């Protein structure tokens, strides 16, 4: 190989690669609209994006996995936390996290209500972008090990003879086992905010000892809901989170619980039964 051939190789390689790259870029432009639901980029979403930029959020957080690595990824945050929670959180993060305990705290940003609402609209738009199903497993903000972390239980297929903990649950399994499955597969997943470990309160209170606690609540004077028994109370808490409020600024404001609503629609009666059966077993 002489000098000229080497130069032609460099030029040729660059030209071909650049051409292919440009062609694919054009094709991507054809698809951006559909993949990102561009028709849903309302003025509100656009303003929310400006808020995201203005407050330099990306130099602590990641969004779509891009940014700094100092604070949690927010790609799917609106699927894990309800709007009321996010509103309250953005007003004052110190209500939710303790810098002594977590060693990091988000500084209060002094956003206006409008900015907060639009920011949430933007994050909600981001959460619906078709991004090849990333993250492969929900990225949680807080919480310790959760039962859902087992790969075998949720992914293995076709091994009917395996013991129940080593294969996906089926309709023949105990309702409580099926309920545990719903607990981590419902959308949003219950375990994104509730642990089942004693004392491990996350965005929602721990559900350890729930059955015992529910029985106490039902007989107390402060109870305002209409449930008669423990499973009824659990069912009510799922479909109508504000029926009875657990005290705490981090759980509710103005009589509205921060827990997302809509489980009455997204879960079937049967799934609710299983869930209630499972949670009632947490004595």
């Amino acid at each position: 190989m002489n000098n000229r051939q080497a130069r032609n190789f460099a030029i040729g390689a660059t030209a071909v690669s650049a051409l292919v790259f440009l062609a694919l870029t054009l094709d991507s432009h054809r698809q951006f609209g559909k993949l990102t639901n561009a028709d849903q980029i309302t003025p509100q979403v656009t303003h929310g994006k400006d808020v995201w930029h203005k407050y330099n959020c990306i130099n602590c957080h990641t969004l779509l996995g891009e940014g700094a690595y100092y604070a949690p990824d927010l790609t799917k945050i609106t699927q894990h936390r309800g709007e009321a929670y996010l509103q309250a959180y953005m007003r004052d993060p110190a209500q939710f996290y303790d810098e002594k305990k977590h060693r990091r705290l988000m500084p209060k940003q002094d956003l206006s209500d409008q900015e907060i609402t639009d920011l949430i609209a933007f994050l909600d738009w981001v959460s619906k972008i078709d991004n090849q199903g990333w993250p492969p497993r929900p990225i949680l903000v807080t919480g310790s090990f959760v039962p859902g972390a087992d790969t075998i239980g949720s992914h293995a297929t076709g091994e009917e003879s395996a013991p129940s903990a080593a294969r996906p649950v089926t309709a023949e399994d105990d309702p409580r086992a099926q309920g545990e499955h719903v607990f981590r597969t419902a959308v949003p997943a219950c375990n994104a905010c509730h642990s089942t470990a004693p004392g491990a309160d996350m965005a929602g209170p721990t559900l350890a000892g729930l059955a015992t606690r529910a029985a106490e609540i039902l007989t107390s004077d402060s109870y305002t809901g209409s449930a008669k028994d423990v499973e009824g109370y659990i069912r009510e808490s799922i479909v109508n989170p504000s029926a009875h409020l657990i005290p705490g600024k981090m759980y509710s404001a103005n009589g509205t619980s921060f827990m997302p609503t809509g489980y009455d629609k997204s879960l079937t009666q049967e799934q609710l039964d299983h869930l209630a059966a499972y949670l009632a077993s947490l004595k």
Partner: protein
Amino acid sequence: MRYKSQSVAYWYFAVAMVLFGLQLVFGLLSASKYLGPDPLLYILPFDVTKVIHTNLLIVWVLTGFMGATYWMVPDESRTELHSVKLAYIQLVLWVLMGVSAIIGYLFRFGTGNKLLEQPLPHKIVIVICMLIFLYNIGMTIKKAGRFTTTEGVLMIGLVTSALLFFPALLHYENYTVSIFYRWWTIHLWVEGVWMMIMGAFLAYLLIRLSGADREVMEKWLYVIVGLVFIAGILGTAHHYYWVGVPTYWLPIGGLFSALEPAALVGMAMYAYSAIRRAGMSHPNKLALHWTIGSALFSLFGAGLLGLAHTWPSVNKWTHGTLITAMHGHAAFYGAYAMIVLAMITYALPSLTRGRPEEGNSLGYWAFWLQIAGMFGMTLSFATAGIGQVYLERIMGMGYLDAQLKIQVHFLMLIATASLFTVGVALFIYDFFRHAPAFIVDNQEETSAVARASV
């Protein structure tokens, strides 16, 4: 120094040194916030220290590139610079731009778009500086009428760097589209055209430091450039995973970015074989350390550690974790920080008074402490990142809880970063220890001509 106008390089290098030092101050501040709690939460929060840290890096490395170019082009074209005055005007504008941007960041005055945080007026000044620079260099070469391949590769690298900054000036309504074009600037810089710049400096240094034959060196430089672009252009796709673009970018990104290390292996072999075959022909052994060091450290940081997480099925788990920080630090330092330090070390003896040509022990301490420190930092980020991936991404532990579990790696990070900082402090001290003195000598010129005519 053979041409008087090469002395402008000194002032560019001096600015680069100051900014490099400042970059580390903000880096150390950021690292200590990883440990927390943060007493400066409302004075200097993490997002501010981090944006200043990364922007200072980009600005000082570019300052170094410009200085090194003003040093190299007269040597290659055998002429004085077209205009020394323009070079100083450019430097002043550039420093004003950089300093005001940094001050602005303290007050959250920026675009909030990662690595491209400079407000629009600053971006425009950047473009103006680039144009002055390219004009000045272009005129120098034109007047000389002598244009080497090494210089050509450098020039094309610089011109395309300026062109690729263009997408960063535009506004995009769709967040995904803005990510798409952000990488045209960032990725195609660091894994494309900046590699040409680095390759050109590498070739220049190897030709001067070793007795290697220019003809052969320049032929292989072409081959390296070809390899960079075959893999690097389509390799952009490794930033297109999981951000809302068509799925075909996944296999393309995996395949082509996995080929990117080939060019880095090429560079390392290039450096090694030049020295092995041709031996040393120049007393500046310290500059040789930085030159070979740069080729090897970028093979490690960019090639090996880039490869480690570039395949989509791996990146799915590591994307957005400290694994990225591990690779980013080692790659940037090895490829771009070290090549600038190599050019500075090579040029410095003839830009300052009383500095021994072959380097002194302070210089070697600076070199080895930096290497050891950066290697340790890379390992700290790696161990922290691996812990994070397993705990948070694979096992499903919450982000904040997982970060608490990997605190020990942040301690290690701060320890090794301090070691690195000592190395850099020594380098800066050594830089300013000898007063500038611009001595033009013709001795080397004649021997170079003699060599070229052999």
